[in-house]
């Protein structure tokens, strides 16, 4: 076994919490031995994403796997199920999609905002747009059931309700998160919410946005 010979080079005072990652900042990977990798040894860390950011990426990987599971079921059903009757995209879908895209835009504007009042306004708008999307989706369901398209109707409509439903539940979580941050921003007079929580929530929100586009393409355009 090799025995470490060199004394460990202790980095002068690197914050343990590592909450604000500093890409390319001081304290690069001069580890105590040659084998410190990307996240290196505990001393100097260059590219260590903060806990929340990493945790959210992992959660998104997990959510992706769930939708990959659904997608493979969908593809199999589309290919083999004799009962498959694809429905056309209801017009309301486009309005909802527009609302969701707008919410992502307003969330980005909130993140770019410098003044706290501006940030709070954009965040409130994002919340409202998110809620509007969910209401729109429910309305969509209601319209479809009135046309006689039910969950148990045929495989395609089953998948439509399933995928919009599961996506909606995830989005509801996002709205709840955003609403909490927004409420916190309004209550703590003048102070902006922690950048880290905002960034993580935004990551989730944009992912849900992208996921919706994916579902839309799969449900209505992939034949």
């Amino acid at each position, binding site marked *: *076994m090799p*025995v*470490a*010979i*060199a*004394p*460990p080079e*202790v980095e002068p005072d690197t914050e*343990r*919490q*590592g*909450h604000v990652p500093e890409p390319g900042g001081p304290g690069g990977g001069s*580890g*105590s*031995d040659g*084998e*410190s*990798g990307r*996240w*290196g*040894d*505990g*001393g100097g860390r260059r590219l*260590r*994403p*903060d*806990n*929340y950011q*990493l*945790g959210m990426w*992992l*959660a998104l*990987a*997990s*959510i992706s*796997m*769930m*939708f*990959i*599971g*659904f997608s*493979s*079921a969908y593809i*199999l*059903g589309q290919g*083999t*199920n*004799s*009962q*498959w009757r694809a429905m056309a995209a209801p017009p309301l879908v486009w309005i909802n999609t527009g609302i969701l895209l707008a919410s992502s835009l307003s969330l980005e504007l909130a993140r770019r905002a410098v003044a706290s009042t501006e940030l709070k306004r954009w965040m409130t708008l994002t919340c409202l747009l998110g809620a509007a999307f969910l209401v729109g989706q429910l309305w969509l369901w209601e319209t479809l059931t009135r046309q006689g398209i*039910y*969950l*148990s109707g*045929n*495989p395609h409509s*089953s998948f439509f309700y*399933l995928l919009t439903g*599961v996506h909606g539940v995830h989005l509801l979580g996002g709205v709840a998160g955003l609403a909490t941050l927004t409420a916190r921003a309004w209550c703590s007079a003048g102070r902006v919410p*922690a950048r880290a929580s905002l960034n993580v929530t935004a990551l989730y929100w944009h992912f849900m946005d992208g996921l919706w586009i994916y579902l839309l393409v799969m449900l209505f355009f992939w034949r």
Partner: protein
Amino acid sequence: MSDSAHPAVHPAPTTFIRKWVFSTDHKIIGIQYYFLALIAVFTGLALSVLMRLRLAWPAESWPWLETIFPVGFEGGVMSPEFYLAMLTMHGTIMVFFVLTTAPQGGFGNYFLPIQIGAHDMAFPVLNMLSFWVTFLSMGVMFAAFFVAGGAPISGWTAYAPLSALGEVAGPGLGSGQDLWIISIALFCIASLLGALNFITTVLNMRTKGMSLMKMPLTVWTWFTTAILALLSFPVLLAAGILLLLDRLGGTSFFIPAGLVVSDTVIENSGGSPILWQHLFWFFGHPEVYIAILPGMGVASQLLSTFARKPIFGYHAMVIAVFAIGMLGFFVWGHHMFVSGLSPFSALVFSILTLAIGVPSAIKTFNWLGTLWGGKIRFTTAMLFAIGFVSLFVSGGITGLFLGQTSVDVQLHDTYFPVAHFHMIMGVAAIFGIFGATYYWFPKMFGRMLHEGLGKLHFWLTFAGVNAIFIPMHLMGIMGQLRRYAESTEFKFMEPLQPYQEFVTIAAFVTAAAQLLFLVNFCWGMFKGRKAGENPWEATTLEWITASPPPHDNFGGRELVVNHGAYEYGVPGAPRDYVMQTDPPLETTK
């Protein structure tokens, strides 16, 4: 996730509730998981004993059992449906609440942060949440025993369409099956939260100097297991949602057209029962590694510690763990060789399955290499680690039989696969848990377990499981069918009845031997000899702190790691072991 700047440092709790019940301390949560698994394992064991009773003496009447189970034991004989319910619940409880929970949730939670020098997990509140969701999940699962119709009879794999049709398909497939699915869905969510936490902790919370390649192999296996859980449980969750919709929402994801069940025409149409198998086994095979990988980590740790030698081929071990984990995602088809899989995909799955033999053999070779020429200390923990290697070989070798389509077609649905997976996924993983318990008990509870009692427990268990499962392999080759409550109807299985009786007696002895463990555990917690900081003269970070460790693990110390995880017998070192935090050695080239 309301923790502020320091995600892992929280003040020591003062109230009883915050300290022992809704604790955010990873050590308490680990112990909570462990006790949950302990309750589950004895429940699962009791169910298997009941099943063995039925199998060995099918005609015998047990009136006293009727007083306990008035529904299942009418006339003192277990009904076949009740047998299937026992079978389902035994499998489910053992796989989810024991093999997934104890090594990862229990020991992983307790020792992963300590072994990397962290004060706690990355997300302590999330950690608490994962435990309580697991607890809720187990409550829902146990509730399935008590609803009308009893526990489901569709097996732990819940194959559709049996599991998708509801009460019409059999007792327990009504609300019992609903509760089963809900429980599994909750378990998935809890495991996801746990996995996310484990990965973040390993990547972000290591102390100064703890590079990835200095981590103990236990940490590597918990880390790999967490990746497997993170990516496989969501697929099971997706499958569970689809199944629940089939049952409650009238959809036909898994229900094919033209089914007639119990003289009832099922109106659903167009679904694919095979889809359930694909989704289930996409989760199910990684699940096998979720159960066994932490055991491999524990075996490596224990063999190195008690052979007083560095682990043989540390890097190879890390790569092998990762290879096993990743290959595990591409072999689910080997559970479905008789489901009408195309011969080409069966061939691909078969080759990939056999490929897992390579990293597995690397691990076994390295374990033996670690033992070779070591100054072996035969503690109880070490015996269980050696037992693990033994069972890993004898259980793994039969996997090579089953991984080949042509052999599998013959052996499928006999006792052979039952013996195979019990040997490797069940008993080997349990040996990992036992080894970990005997090894870490002093750290967790500050007292030693009784070695003599422990060794008796080991020998009885080791002899017992071999006496149970070796005959089961033979019975499988001779055609004994699995999942049948009795085989008296089949002429060709008649000569196998003496085997059934032998296996049942062996199972009773083995089950009784577990009471020794329980006695030792309870005795050890209150009356055992006090343990010092490092009773085993081991090198990893948990052994530099008090037993049990203080709330922040190291009493406010910030650790600096200078050494690899297994530096035993280093030339020029003052002792025969070098702790990971010891100052760097100035000698040797």
